[in-house]
Structures are given as C-alpha cells and as structure tokens.
C-alpha cells in the first residue's frame, strides 16, 4: 500500500525545535506546580470576599476557568509524555546488574557467608528468601553471571498515570455535563404541572405528603409522587424526597425544599362578592382598588408567640395554623400586623367597603431543582480511576532488588531501588538478610 506523504508528518511537526520546546514547557512539572499554587492562592483570596455572589463570579470568570484549562492541558501533555517511559520502566526492567552497579544503589548490603557454598545453592537460597518476603523472584544468566532479580508492586508504577487520566476524565465529564445540561427551579402542589422546555418534558405532581419525625420539632420529610411525560406519554414516575431524587435519561428531579400554600377567601360584606386565592409566602393580596394590600410573610403550622411577642412555630404539627402578614397602604406604609387563624375571618375596612379575609385551608407544596447532567457516568468513571490510581501510588511501593554472589569473598551482594519509599526498602532488605543468615545456619 502506498500513501501520499504529507509535507510535514505529525511526528516531525512535534519534533521541530521551537514547537518541541514549547511542548516541553507546557508539559513540565514546573508549570504544573506554578499553576496549582496559583489556583490555591486565587481560591483563598476568593473565599475571603464578603459576598457570596462576588465569590461565585470569580470561579465562573474566564481567567479562573482559563487557568484550570491550562492546568488540564499541562496535565494532559505531561501524562501523555510519561506513558512510554513509565511503561518501559515498569515492564522491561534491567534484570541483571554488575557488582559495581549494586554498590551504587541507594540501599545495599553485603552478606558474608560462613563458608563458601556453590553459587547455585546460594542464589537459590537468596531467591527463596526474597520469595518468602512476598517478592516475585527470578534468576537470570547474563554477562555478569547469575543475578537474582526480585520485585514487587509493579502496578504502583501506573498509579500516577491512572490518577492523572482519571482527573482528566473528570474534567471532560464536568465540561460535557455543563455544555449539554440545564438547571431549573420549579414547584407546586398536588395537581400542578411543571413544564420543562429545555428537557422537552413535563412533570405532573400527583400527590404531596409529609411524614413527621418522632420529635415534631425536627423538620419533617416531605414526599411527592410525580409523573413525567413527554408528548403526552409517561416516561418516568416515582416518589421524590430529600436525598431521594428521581432520575431518568440523564435528568434528575431533586426535592429542594417544601413550602406551605394557603387557601384564602376574600369576601366583600357590602357587595357579597367572594374570591378565592392561593397564597405562597411573600405573596401580596390586594384588598381594595386603591392599593391597600397584605404582604404575607410566613405560615406557622403551630403558631405561638414568645415572651417578647415574637411569633414562632412550636413544631411542625398543624395544630394551630396561622398565616401572618403585614397590611400596607397604597404608599407602601405598613399599617398593622395580620394573623389569619384557620376559618377565623379578619375584617378590614377599605375604600371598597368591609372586606373579610379568611384562611380556609393550606397544602404542602414542593420545590424542585430539575437538572440534566449527561456527564455523570463520565465523572464517576474518572473518579474511580482517580482513586484507584492514588491507591496504587501510595499503597503499592514498586521496589526491586538485585543479588549477586561473589564466590571469592563468599559474599552475597544485594542492592535495592524503590520508586518511592526508601525506608520500606531498607526494612525489607533487613528482613531478607536476616532470613538468609538464618537459612544459612540451618
């Protein structure tokens, strides 16, 4: 097969001098350290800001995200660059070493034997001692004669590769999720329908109910039964509560909080006109055509006032429901407090005559956060890889030992190298030497 050769191959492009230098800089750990420190410092400064929104704006700013992206690029390049050398180092170790090389190793020991035994026998004994310490052992024959080669924790070499790849996958997942997702707040009472145009579906609230805790002062759990439809066809249904979202096709409906919705009837005594209103906290209710209105502030399921006259709810049991608010005139000047007890009308004289306002009932409403996050499976995969990589990095310590037998001195020369922990290497060697001397005595 013949292929037309491009003017500059991919490989050549990346080995051309200036490009190579830029790539080297971009993939360097120096840059990595600077970027990570920069992220840490900016994050510190951001959290010391006064206002939450100001803080949030930093993390959404182009330059903060830019530094993150730059760190990700740095991480990607340096991970890619490490693949080949790491694989070589992990899978193709040099199994034989000269006596001089062993003498230069960070950890070494010379075990002089009591009598001069045949090399075969000594090396077999040494190999067995390593084997007993849990290392993989083999005896190779090369230019320096026979060498015992023992190693453990090879997977540890790949720990950082795996954790970096996992981290990159997490970043990809977060980006993908942000680009393809949406977030929306909405809610209602039983019977309401929330339409979600971004997701092309609608949520119908079938039922809402509350389960009180044994201790009624503890915030109760609120459940709601919903049915999700797409073009009139039901695509999902289930019960939603706190920590119990409904998930379908990458979408999630979370219970965010609950509210009380009051049924209020307004009756004009002079004209006999009656109207019904559904009132949420903070809603306004106009009393006359001039602008007199009630601003409702809070609903108390079990109303009481403390010694200073401040209203509060004794607990969540609906034993003394009260809807409280303040009456304002047309100039937004507060006139008086209003406390609507259940089925106990309060009368106001207004420009339009006597108006009776009555709280006739109340219902539980739910507030949802509805989101789509298609990045979730990617995030989970990345997180698992990341944690597994960290585990390999910090719990498996790749270590290697080489041993030669010096027939003239009747001495075993052992040297070791580790990828991380020198202390562990020393302890292990100590143990192996002990084992060799013990076995030799037998």
């Amino acid at each position, binding site marked *: 097969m013949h292929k037309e050769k491009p003017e500059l191959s991919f490989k050549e492009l990346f080995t051309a001098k200036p490009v190579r230098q830029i790539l080297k800089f971009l993939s360097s750990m120096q840059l990595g350290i600077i970027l990570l420190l920069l992220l840490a410092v900016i*994050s510190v400064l951001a959290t010391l800001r006064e206002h939450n929104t100001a803080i949030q704006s930093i993390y959404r700013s182009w330059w903060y995200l830019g530094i993150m992206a730059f760190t990700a690029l740095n991480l990607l390049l340096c991970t890619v660059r490490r693949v080949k050398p790491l694989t070589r180092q992990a899978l193709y170790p040099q199994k034989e070493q000269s006596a001089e090389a062993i003498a230069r190793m960070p950890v070494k020991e010379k075990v002089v034997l009591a009598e001069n035994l045949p090399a075969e026998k000594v090396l077999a004994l040494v190999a067995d001692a390593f084997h007993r310490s849990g290392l993989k052992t083999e005896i190779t024959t090369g230019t320096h004669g026979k060498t015992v080669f023992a190693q453990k924790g090879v997977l540890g070499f790949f720990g950082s590769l795996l954790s970096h790849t996992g981290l990159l996958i997490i970043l990809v997942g977060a980006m993908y999720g942000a680009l393809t997702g949406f977030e929306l707040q909405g809610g209602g009472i039983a019977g309401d329908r929330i339409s979600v145009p971004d997701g092309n579906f609608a949520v119908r609230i079938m039922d809402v109910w509350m389960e009180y805790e044994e201790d009624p002062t503890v*915030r109760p759990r609120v459940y709601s039964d919903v049915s999700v439809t797409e073009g009139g066809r039901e695509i999902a249904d289930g019960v939603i509560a706190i920590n119990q979202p409904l998930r379908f096709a990458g979408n*999630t409906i979370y219970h965010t909080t609950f509210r009380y919705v009051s049924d209020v009837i307004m009756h004009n005594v002079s004209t006999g006109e009656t109207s019904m209103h559904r009132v949420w906290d903070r809603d306004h209710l106009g009393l006359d055509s001039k602008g007199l209105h009630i601003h409702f502030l809070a609903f108390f399921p079990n109303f009481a006032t403390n010694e200073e006259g401040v209203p509060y709810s004794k*607990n969540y049991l609906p034993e003394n429901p009260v809807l409280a608010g303040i009456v304002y005139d047309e100039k937004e000047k507060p006139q008086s407090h209003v406390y609507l007890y259940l089925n106990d009308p309060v009368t106001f004289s207004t420009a339009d005559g006597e108006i009776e306002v009555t709280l006739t009932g109340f219902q539980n409403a739910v507030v949802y956060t509805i989101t789509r996050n298609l990045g979730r499976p990617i995030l989970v995969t990345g997180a698992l890889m990341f*944690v597994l990589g*960290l585990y390999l990095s910090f719990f498996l310590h790749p270590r290697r030992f080489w041993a030669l037998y010096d027939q003239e001195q009747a001495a075993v020369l052992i040297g070791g190298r580790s990828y991380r*922990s020198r*202390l562990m290497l020393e302890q292990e060697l100590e143990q192996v030497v002990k084992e060799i001397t013990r076995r030799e005595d037998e």
Partner: protein
Amino acid sequence: MTGYLEVSPLGLAVENILFTIAAVAYLLSTAGYLFYIFGKKKLGPWASYLLRFSFLLHTAFLVTRTINAGRIPLVGHFEFGNVFIWACVLFYLWLEWRLQGRDYSVGAFLTPLVVLYLAYLTVAPHLITKINISRAHKPLQPVLQSNWLQIHVSASVLGYACFTLAFAVAIMWLLKTWLHNKAFARNLPEPLILEEYMYRASGIGFLFQSIMIITGAIWADTSWGRYWGWDPKEVWALITWFVFAVYLHARFTRGWRGMRTVMLVIVGWVAMVFTWVGVAWLLTGIHSFG
C-alpha cells in the same frame, strides 16, 4: 424549634465522665511523651501505655455517644472533632506499632496537637464568643440522612488525621535541623527519615482527602442537586488538596527536599485547619452544619 434528642441522665453522665477522663489521660500521656523527648527515656513505654489507655477510654466515649444519640457521632463540630482526634491517635499508635518500641519521639509532637484540638473543643468556646460548639445530641436533619455522609465524613477524618501526623513530623524536622547540636534534637530521628514519614502520611492523607472530596460531590449531587457549588468549605478542601498535590509533586518529580517541602506541609495543615475551624466561624456557606 429546638430539635434536641432526649438522652437519659445516666447515659449523659457516663458520656461526660468518659470524655473528661479520656481528655485528662491524653493530657497525662502528652506529659509522658514530653518527658521522654527531654531525656527521660524510660518514660517512653509508659507514655505509650497511657496513650493506649486514653484511646480505649475515648473509644468508650464514642460508643456511649453513639448509643445516646442513636446514630454514629459524625455531625457537628463536637462529634467531628472527637472522631478526628480519635483517628489521629489511631494512626499514631499504628506508627508506634510499626516501630515496635524503637522510638516514641513522634508522640511528643502528635499528642500536643491532640491536646490542642481538645482545647479547641472545650476551652476555646469559653474564650472566644464567636465560637459556639454545642455538645447537645441532635437528630440528623433529613439532608444528612445518607450513607454517603458516613463515607464522606470518615474519609475526611482519616485524611485530616494523616495531615496532622505529617504536620507533627514537619515540626520535628524544623527542630531537628535548627537545634541539631542540642541534646534535645539528638533524640529525634534523622531528617531524611522524618521526611519520609511526612511523605507517606501526606500521600495517604491525600488519598483520603480525594475520597472525601469525591464522596462529598456525590452526596451533594443527590441532596442539593449539584455536585460542586464552590461553597467556602468545598473550596477550602480543594485548597488543602492543591497544596498537598504541590508538595507530593515537588518531592516526587522535582526532587524537592528539606525546608521547602516542610513549609508546604505546614501550609497544607494550616489550610486543613482553616477548612475545619475558619470556615465555620469566619466564612458562611451551606456547610454551616459541619
């Protein structure tokens, strides 16, 4: 609305007594370790016995608290702090077991930190009005009733304990190098050995810190509808994580040794303590229950 659990007077008394004795025993074993480091070598094993005894009492306290509260004590400053202290001692005792009685000097630096954390839980609220650490038994709010909470908090406790150990060793390193010709410093391990302790403790701490951040994100995703919201506690956990990431890379790939790495570990520990203490009293956020 109060929201407290009712606890039997007996249960409460047992819990408080166990806590007090454990605290006093920690204090005494700290004294033992300090005597050890200042030359009374014979006291080493005794300090260690006392620490193990204190640890048992502290364990008994946590068990009593679990029974009294009817759940694992992982929420609120007081409970978190106790489990955190318990984990610090656990890791240190593990190190002592690995050393098989050859050296007790790390204990002389770890136990004062334990005492410092205890003082924060018990004395600081009396001195600083802004700090308000309640010992009351509270039931779990619905949002906290999740298995992820247990994994998340356990991971953070273990991570913080490792970082505390790394910090204790960092201080040892500083004293060893500054006072190298004093008798006191001669009782400390060689700087290279200390650096290795610091490295291993930080590495394992980093693993737990990562698990903490990830499980926290999963938990936030199921209860708040977002996995990351840049709230101060989250950001400070991330800052701590960044600092230790810098340390691990600087040591591992750039071959940094000595002072620079010790400083990074100290900064990382400060960030960790701020995540726990500072965020709660100086910054505000959704995490205010922790």
